[in-house]
């Protein structure tokens, strides 16, 4: 009786996971894993981005004469689930490569799986430097500019302000720690006499903003480097505005210019902060115009940074398949190394030495108009300009 | 005769009213003592103090020559004080047999390893259930037992540890007269046979005077009369405060 029950359960699992019958013109299957239910605010624009690119690519006949099929799965924000799904995608669905992930630790989990199981993984969004450096491996590549790259862009700009006494505020997890360390590192190289007088580490998405703002104020810094984002950022900005924390201080802030984070601030959006971001409303290039029009037509909303990342992820997948002329993992990996492609942001390439794409970011100042924050006086920083040289980067990676 | 239990100046106060008020008495081995008194007199509270469920505000308890005032209930049980509760307490997720087996297992130091408990002490448990007269209901879940049978079961569990002193709080509450007599006959029979000192509370006077060889009367936390059943029955104070209008019954 007990066994029958169990057998029935297993039977159900078998039934839903049994192999599908093969058809003649089979599409190329790609496995895509992301935290869709956990962080819909960031992953939905991303999904819309790659969906748009996917439709465009398939409308033109796909690659290698086959359509591309994305199998999209939700990891629920859990690395264990992500690894299990990766297993299922590879072993059962027979996808040719994996892509996606948002949280760094999930990216790392899937990367480790990719290495163990020898399957190509294109990490689209996770920012951790370790993903391609000290925990890098042959099978993992990353698209988005890493924590180090974005922090370095800001540090370069910060060095020009001449501020000496710095305080930092960052969420208390590895992204925050890494972003602070990278910023301090680069800034000290550029300006050896800077001093870091205080570091605040609020719990992620649980900032106690009043107390944090007061603690920063107590340290009396000339400038503050902020890494909080999302709801923490909004709470922090309002509390800081109310208590005059930002008055007469240089403010430097990571990712704050991305529409994901700037738009929800509305009238509370800060002015005069130096930020990295994505000023989609002001970029004038034919490639970007085309993307912007298509995106707005398809989804009836403006793009976020995630949309761009999603779009470029899909373009990269199509490009690597076309270059490799194969769906075999080792061929794909070889093709990924040094792969160059055109995107709405311009030309990007995946460096052979450390598997990091040279996709860059925009650096500028925040401003507010009509109750809405935006970026002004911005310039585009190519990722290649803030990355260590390929020779130096290669040394950061473990010998595989 | 030697006293197996001695209580000296025992006192327990709830809020401002003393439930047990400087009580002194001793119980001799092998005797059968009834503790009577109107509702709220403090009988159950005194039992809790003796069993260790409550700790006394002041006073001392000696059992078998040792001062047990500060001992937890567990240790008192291991020393030989067994009891039943006014509201019968048994293990509701088990059968009657398993209840008694568990009571027997509790007497084994260290428990008994990974051996299946269902076959441990089966014979002894059946014998105990037979002693209290519910061997037929052995396999029943206790939730299916009649209340009287639950009280019998509790008695069997209390006997499992081979106690020297048995405290029974209203062992016959809620029973018909014939059943009362039967269970008290069994209980006193076992006590006499095994030399167990018996202390029980009871509201039914036929039971009290039929089975006790000594009666203590409690009133408002104090023991107001103590002696042979005949003497206590005749005590005018007792007649007034306790037996009241029914004194002649």
């Amino acid at each position, binding site marked *: *009786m*007990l066994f029958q*029950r*169990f057998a029935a*359960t297993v039977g*159900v699992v*078998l039934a839903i*996971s049994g*192999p599908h019958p093969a058809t003649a013109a089979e599409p190329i299957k790609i496995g895509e894993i992301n935290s869709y*239910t956990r962080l819909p*605010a960031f992953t939905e624009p991303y999904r819309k981005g790659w969906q748009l690119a996917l439709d465009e690519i398939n409308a033109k006949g796909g690659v290698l004469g086959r359509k591309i099929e994305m199998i999209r*799965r939700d990891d629920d924000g*859990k*690395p*264990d*689930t992500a690894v*299990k799904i990766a297993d299922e995608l590879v*072993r059962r669905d027979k996808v040719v490569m994996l892509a996606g992930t948002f949280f*760094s*630790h999930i990216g790392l*989990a899937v990367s*480790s799986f990719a290495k163990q199981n020898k399957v190509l993984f294109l990490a689209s969004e996770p920012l951790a430097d370790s993903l391609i450096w000290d*925990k890098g491996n042959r099978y993992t590549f990353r698209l988005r500019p890493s924590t180090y790259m974005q922090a370095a862009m800001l540090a370069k700009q910060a060095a020009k302000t001449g501020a000496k006494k710095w305080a930092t505020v960052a969420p*208390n*997890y*590895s992204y925050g*720690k890494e972003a602070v360390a990278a910023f301090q590192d680069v800034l000290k190289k550029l300006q050896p006499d800077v001093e870091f007088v205080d*570091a605040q*580490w*609020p*719990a992620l998405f*649980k900032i*106690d903003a*009043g*107390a944090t703002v*007061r*603690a920063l104020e107590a340290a009396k810094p000339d400038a503050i480097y902020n890494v909080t984002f*999302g*709801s923490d950022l*909004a*709470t922090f900005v309002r509390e800081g505005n*109310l208590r*005059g924390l930002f008055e007469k201080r240089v403010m430097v802030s990571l990712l704050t210019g991305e529409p994901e984070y700037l738009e929800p601030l*509305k009238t509370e959006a800060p002015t005069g902060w130096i930020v990295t971001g994505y000023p989609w409303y002001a970029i004038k290039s034919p490639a970007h115009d085309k993307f912007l029009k298509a995106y707005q037509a398809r989804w009836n909303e403006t793009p976020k940074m995630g949309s761009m990342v999603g779009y470029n992820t899909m373009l990269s997948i199509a490009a690597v398949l076309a270059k490799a002329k194969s769906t075999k993992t080792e061929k794909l990996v070889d093709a990924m190394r040094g792969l160059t492609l055109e995107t709405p942001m311009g030309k990007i390439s995946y460096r052979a030495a450390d598997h990091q794409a040279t996709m860059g970011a925009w650096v500028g100042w925040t401003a507010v108009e009509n109750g809405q924050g935006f970026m002004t006086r911005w310039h585009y920083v190519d990722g290649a300009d803030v990355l260590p040289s390929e020779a130096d980067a290669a040394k950061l990676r473990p010998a595989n | 005769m030697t006293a197996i239990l001695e209580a000296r100046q025992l006192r327990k106060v709830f809020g401002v009213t003393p439930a047990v008020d400087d009580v002194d008495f001793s119980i001799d081995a092998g005797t059968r003592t009834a503790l009577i008194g109107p509702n709220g007199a403090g009988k159950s509270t005194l039992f809790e103090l003796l069993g260790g*469920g409550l700790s006394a505000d002041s006073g001392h308890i000696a059992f078998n020559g040792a001062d047990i005032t500060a001992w937890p*209930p*567990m240790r008192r*049980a291991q020393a030989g004080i067994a009891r039943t509760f006014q509201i019968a307490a048994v*293990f*509701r*997720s088990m059968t009657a047999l*398993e209840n008694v087996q568990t009571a027997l*297992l*509790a007497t084994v130091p260290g*428990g008994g390893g*990974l*051996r299946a408990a*269902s076959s441990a002490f089966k014979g002894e448990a059946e014998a105990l259930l037979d002693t209290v007269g519910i061997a037929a209901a052995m396999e029943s879940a206790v939730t299916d037992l009649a209340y009287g049978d639950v009280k019998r079961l*509790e008695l069997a*569990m209390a006997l499992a540890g081979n106690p020297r002193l048995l405290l029974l709080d209203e062992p016959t509450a809620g029973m018909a007269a014939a059943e009362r007599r039967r269970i008290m006959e069994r209980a006193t029979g076992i006590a006499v046979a095994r030399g167990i000192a018996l202390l029980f509370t009871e509201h039914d006077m036929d039971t009290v005077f039929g089975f006790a060889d000594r009666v203590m009367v409690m009133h408002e936390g104090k023991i107001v009369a103590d002696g042979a059943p005949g003497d206590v029955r005749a005590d005018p104070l007792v007649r007034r405060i306790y037996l009241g209008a029914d004194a002649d019954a």
Partner: protein
Amino acid sequence: MAFAFAQFLTGLASASWLFLVAAGLTIVFGVTRVVNFAHGSLYMLGAYIAYSLTGMLSLGGFWLAVPIAAVTVGLLGVVLEMTVLRRLYGAPELFQLLATFGVVLIVKDVALTLFGPVDLFGPRAPGLTGAVRIFGEPIPEYDLFMIGAGITVLAIIWLLFNRTRFGILVRAATEDAGMVAALGVDSGRIFTLSFFIGSTLAGLAGALQVPREPVTLLMDLNVIAEAFVVVVIGGMGSVFGAFIAAILIGQLKAFGILVLPESTLVVAFLAMTVVLALRPNGLFGRAASGPPPAAEIAPPENLGRFGRPAAIALLISLALLPLVAEPFILVLCVDIMTLALFAAGLRLMTGPGGMISFGHAAFFGLGAYAAAATAKAGLGMVAGLAAAPLAAGLGAIVIGWLCVRSSGVYLAMLTLAAAQILWSAAVQWNWLTGGDDGVLGIWPDRWATGPVAYYYLTLAVSGAGMWLLIRLAEAPFGYMLRAGRDAPARARALGIDQRRLKWLAFTAAGIAAGLAGGLAAFAKGNVFPDVLSIPKSVDGLLAILLGGLHAPAGPVIGAAIYAALENILSRLDHWRALLGLSIVGLAVFAPGGVGGWISKRLRHRSRP
């Protein structure tokens, strides 16, 4: 001095908010004894509704939106009470907890559908948009308003409970529900009303938070743990206790951040642990009287005479499975078996032991990290799998010693605190754990690599673990453990050392969880702080709910169903709501779980 005073006011403003959330929770618990995990969801709904209304109402704006939102949430709370919770009064806390957790999942999906995924940041409160200077320090006007609101609500609750007929009845019902019923008062109405009050307070707290922070889908779970901490420190059911506890936490955070900024992660849980170590029922709480409700429904434990053949048949078929199943099924089965082992330990302490744990992941995580550290030290997989239960067992001995002094929800909260503190340590101590980035590349020894080999290894190890746990439950140990759960006073009077038995059960459960954690670490190839997180603990609880708390085979059945359910549902867009609905349905209509149902059938047949 001025600085310290301003810091004090800042702490007080957070404390007021915390009190508003916790007050509703503690009132609901005090009256109905329901542990309402969905309180955070009501709080979140209050914020969403107030935000939306602020945009829609041209007249009155935010200030009108607040009371409307609060009352709307109060009414939603009544709906929740009448449809779900009413059926769970008197059920074991575990079922209430899981059912309300199901509600959390449903509300989250509904909120996502209604309000969208994007954070919604409301405007500042009209009339209170600036800051005033107190001793030269800027203090936001709204902070001062929040402080006033907290004190006002405390005063209103006091008046309500001490000066109105309803309040006096509520207090009487808290003391003795049967007594109130005997007086001819419908206690159901009192329960509903107090639920209304509790939910309204949750809605109010959420609505008042709109000018302070954005409304997000993470608000519900972000607030609930802290609210529980406040309720527990204050003593469950004590509104005044919650007030004091909120101030304590608020101030500890406000001043702690100046000394050690990282402390915000753990300060609340550390405070709770200290308070409960000194006062096992919180500052103003009273010990629960009478046996735990679990005793009311706990059915017999054994499988009857079909148990052994069924187990053997299961083992044989699992041993043969690799001959027919594709590799991914084996990977899934490894997950199921580790979850089953984790849940089997948890079941021993929760079922026969009568102790609920909200933080059993603590031991899973200890095991996983111990295995990872051992493997990284180059000692190999076998040593890792030995280190895992050892480390978890040692942890369980220490944590268990503290926990078994409390009972019920207090005990559960202590386990949660232990898990959260360990989680924070795992996040902070990079040198040991790799922080959030975890420990990567912990793969099995060569002989156990590959789905089939690792499947057999897991089958052998977890099978042996579960066999031991089942034996323990059927041994004298298990009987005496149940005795202590069913009738503590009776057990004591028989000389049973209940606290020691509970401690042992706690440790056994910890060891099993640690072993499961070790197996999982080598199966996944990595360990992250997630292994210590609340969702991991919930996985185990859900498995025993599905399988049946009082069925020895429950963990196996529950783990299998849970894994299958997750695998199927996670492909759907609204899978969380569907999972939530299944959980609520099970808790309400089939509290015995699937395993309980089978056990009952088997027992009936095995009767001669």
